[in-house]
């Protein structure tokens, strides 16, 4: 999910993303150290004990509590407390966690032959918090308002808008019936939805896990104000005291039926969220047991990170899972046009030094390929630009420089986000290593809020200022090759500003493979295509991978059923409970 990394603006959220990294629990022989990182692979403190209050705290704020209008991974996870979705991810740790299972649906959706039409049935007997029945029409309306709203909502993803075969529409400016003319989703009866897409989209079921598929009755919709009191379809409902930016408390919804819900354990009686608490304070209170979970899910802040890794007694309470993100350097094709020149950078880069900038073993795995380990088709062993100890191969780099006619190296600039300490150090490490072959890199730092809008992601700015490189990071919207990498490597994703395909890679072969994947039914075959894309992107030397980064999460002893879910890249909040002993 996109926003674990805060690619877009939201300066206030920056502290959330200064995620983790620091020391290894190497050589720890104590009992507690045995449970280091246990939550990454299995359920820790398994328990079915119900009751109690589960306390969260959040350093930044929700982009919105309205399921239609949110793009933070933590909120895609959290909103499931009160907003059920059509599909969900499997509820177990490990390799099968990213498999899809039905939530409100009866079964997984059925496509037609070319994946342009999808039919899904929902369960009968589902109810809102007021006891009224949930219908297919409400789900249709929820999707319509989230995507076709004339700009009322600005935060959420736009996959439905991009793929539904729907003319322009605005539910808030459509006469008496907001859905009149909205024919891309049909509801032949109260429990069936038929989606009509304008192109083949084999991964469409992944989109149906997103919070935008939560049901919203037309009469309940209060547009932007709906987030103040979302009508619950899940096990918890707002207690009516929500203060945006301050606190959100959820209490049990008596009309939710656990028999209809394979996803949520709903153990605590009450959920409390404190909003706008500084990261340092959250970390301190996590340790003291005053709060149970850091809602942002991006791990402890840098100060606590350094402290925890230095504290033997804390090792057993630490989890160190992948954040899901790849940290990388874009090599901008329009600036460094010759592929051999770009490959010279790939060879000359001291990957070991950049990996250390990210905090070594607990900071992440050194990356030599595009797709992160949790994604089917990832090929993290492949390395097209190998070197001894990953220190860079200067002879090869020189060969490549000769090949592109720049034997003495060349000058370029690297753009970084000022506030991101590790991005800056990555750039410094790259600067040092490229200088070894005469590639002279000057570091230009920019505020992260405008980084993609005005600087590294602006085609004009990049060209006018000879920005040949930029430090970036990306996480998947859903855990497949397409959900991860299409936005950063497909030619169609190139934008004039706000450009996340920052290297401006527009390779016909890669574009063709992406399009093929969307017409391929078998996930394994798709995974093979994604592996090919991975290799092609590396051959093009458009992206210099740095690390698959990891977070450092403090796991309270009172927390039950804690396990890392790779789809949300944090604990599965729906499983959590508390046992205060």
């Amino acid at each position: 999910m996109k926003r674990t990394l805060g690619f877009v603006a939201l300066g206030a959220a920056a502290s959330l993303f200064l995620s983790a990294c620091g020391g290894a629990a190497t050589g720890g022989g104590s009992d507690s150290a045995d449970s280091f990182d246990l939550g990454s692979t299995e359920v820790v403190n398994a328990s079915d004990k119900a009751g109690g209050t589960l306390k969260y705290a959040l350093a930044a704020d929700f982009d919105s509590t309205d399921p239609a209008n949110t793009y933070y991974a933590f909120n895609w996870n959290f909103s499931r407390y009160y907003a059920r979705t059509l599909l969900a991810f499997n509820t177990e740790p490990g390799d099968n966690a990213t498999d899809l299972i039905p939530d409100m649906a009866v079964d997984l959706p059925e496509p037609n032959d070319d994946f342009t039409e999808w039919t899904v049935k929902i369960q009968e007997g589902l109810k809102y918090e007021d006891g009224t029945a949930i219908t297919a029409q409400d789900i249709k309306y929820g999707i319509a308002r989230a995507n076709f709203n004339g700009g009322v909502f600005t935060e959420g993803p736009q996959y439905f808008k991009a793929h539904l075969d729907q003319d322009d529409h605005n539910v808030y400016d459509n006469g008496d019936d907001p859905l009149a003319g909205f024919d891309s989703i049909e509801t032949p009866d109260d429990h069936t939805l038929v989606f009509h897409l304008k192109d083949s989209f084999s991964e469409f079921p992944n989109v149906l896990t997103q919070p935008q598929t939560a049901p919203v009755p037309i009469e309940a919709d209060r547009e932007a104000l709906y987030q103040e009191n979302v009508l619950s379809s899940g096990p918890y409902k707002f207690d009516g005291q929500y203060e945006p930016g301050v606190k959100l408390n959820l209490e049990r919804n008596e009309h939710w039926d656990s028999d209809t819900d394979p996803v949520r354990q709903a153990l605590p009686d009450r959920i409390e969220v404190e909003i706008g608490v500084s990261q340092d304070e959250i970390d301190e209170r996590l340790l003291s047991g005053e709060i149970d979970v850091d809602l942002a899910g991006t791990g402890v802040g840098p100060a606590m990170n350094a402290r925890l890794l230095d504290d033997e007694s804390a090792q057993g309470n630490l989890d160190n899972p992948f954040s899901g993100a790849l940290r990388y350097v874009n090599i901008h094709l329009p600036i460094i046009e010759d592929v051999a020149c770009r490959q010279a950078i790939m060879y000359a880069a001291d990957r070991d030094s950049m990996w250390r900038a990210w905090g070594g073993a607990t900071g992440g795995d050194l990356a030599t390929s595009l797709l992160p380990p949790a994604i089917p088709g990832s090929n993290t062993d492949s390395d097209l630009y190998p070197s001894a100890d990953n220190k860079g191969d200067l002879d090869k780099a020189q060969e490549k420089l000769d090949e592109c006619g720049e034997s003495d190296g060349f000058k370029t600039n690297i753009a970084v986000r000022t506030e991101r300490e590790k991005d800056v150090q990555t750039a410094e490490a790259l600067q040092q290593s490229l200088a070894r072959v005469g590639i002279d890199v000057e570091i230009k730092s920019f505020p992260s809020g405008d980084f993609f809008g005005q600087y590294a992601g602006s085609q004009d700015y990049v060209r006018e200022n000879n920005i040949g490189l930029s430090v970036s990071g990306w996480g998947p919207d859903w855990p497949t090759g397409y959900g991860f990498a299409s936005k950063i490597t497909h030619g169609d994703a190139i934008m004039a500003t706000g450009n996340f395909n920052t290297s401006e890679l527009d390779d016909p072969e890669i574009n063709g493979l992406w399009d093929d994947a969307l017409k391929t039914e078998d996930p394994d075959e798709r995974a093979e295509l994604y592996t090919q894309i991975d290799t092609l992107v590396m051959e093009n030397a458009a992206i210099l991978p740095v690390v698959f980064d990891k977070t450092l999460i403090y796991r309270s002893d009172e927390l039950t059923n804690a396990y890392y879910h790779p789809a949300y890249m944090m604990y599965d909040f729906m499983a959590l409970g508390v046992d205060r002993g």
Partner: protein
Amino acid sequence: MSAPSHAPETTEPVDSEPGASASGRSDADNRSLRQIAWQRLRRDKVAMVSGLVVVLLILAAIFAPFLVKLFGHPPTQFHQDLIDPSRRVPYLDPENPDAGIDRWGGISSDHLLGVEPTTGRDLFSRILYGAQISLLVAFLATLVCVALGTLLGIIAGYMGGWVDTVISRAMDIFLAFPLMLFAIALVGVIPDGVFGLTGNGLRIGVIVFIIGFFNWPYIARIVRGQTLALREREFVEAAKSLGASNRHILFKEILPNLVTPIIVYSTLLIPTNILFEAALSFLGVGINPPTPSWGKMLSEAVPFYQTAPYFIIFPGLAIFITVLAFNLFGDGLRDAFDPRTSD
């Protein structure tokens, strides 16, 4: 600035400071104020020591490349072999990683002040090079303040009337400006390459401009006040009656008598500007990496306050000592020049 007063002998404004002549000692009568001040300064131990520190700092900054060649390593050179990659702080013994980490940052004969976490860059040379940036920005900015402040202050004080009103109101407005916020915003939006400046040249230019352009009223107010007093004095009247132009009176008659307060207040402005630059760097709108800067080093040190406290202490001490030295020296100068101070 140190040129002796051009004031006509007969009017002797500099030598006729009431305090000096009122002291009534015969040997004092034949000395200029500057000589008296120098004598006083020499007797002020605190001022002399801080003055020495200031001189040493300036020399250290100027000769940083030479000193680093002798005692350190290039300030951007990585030494990651000294660093525990996970905890990101120096090993106690790089040969034996299992021995743990060194809370004192790997201080050794090779690295006099230890090395930075993560990158292993030599802290000694980074602090020396950081002094270059700090002092360069502070001096340039102070120069701009003094130039603008003196010019506008002397004009306001001498001309009076509507000119004085306009300039004085402008001072009020500039002093009310939220300088720090303005600086943060401006550094972020100024595009690379304006005025033919790029990279650090541009950053330094912008910071100097902001500090200089908004801090001149502090100097201007003092200069204006002194000018108001001076313009009523006999030597000015005399010059006027001899038909001297305004320009001559302003810059040849009045200005020389302002040199002392200007020097004193510039000395006190420099540490303020050092702190301002450090604050900007701390907030990430200072100099581009990897160029070292004290403020930036401090902000990078924050996450390591427990595992690598030396990393906060050394740059913090550098700022502290510099600011304190300039302040004490400035105070000493002021006291030395102040006729009301008794010997």
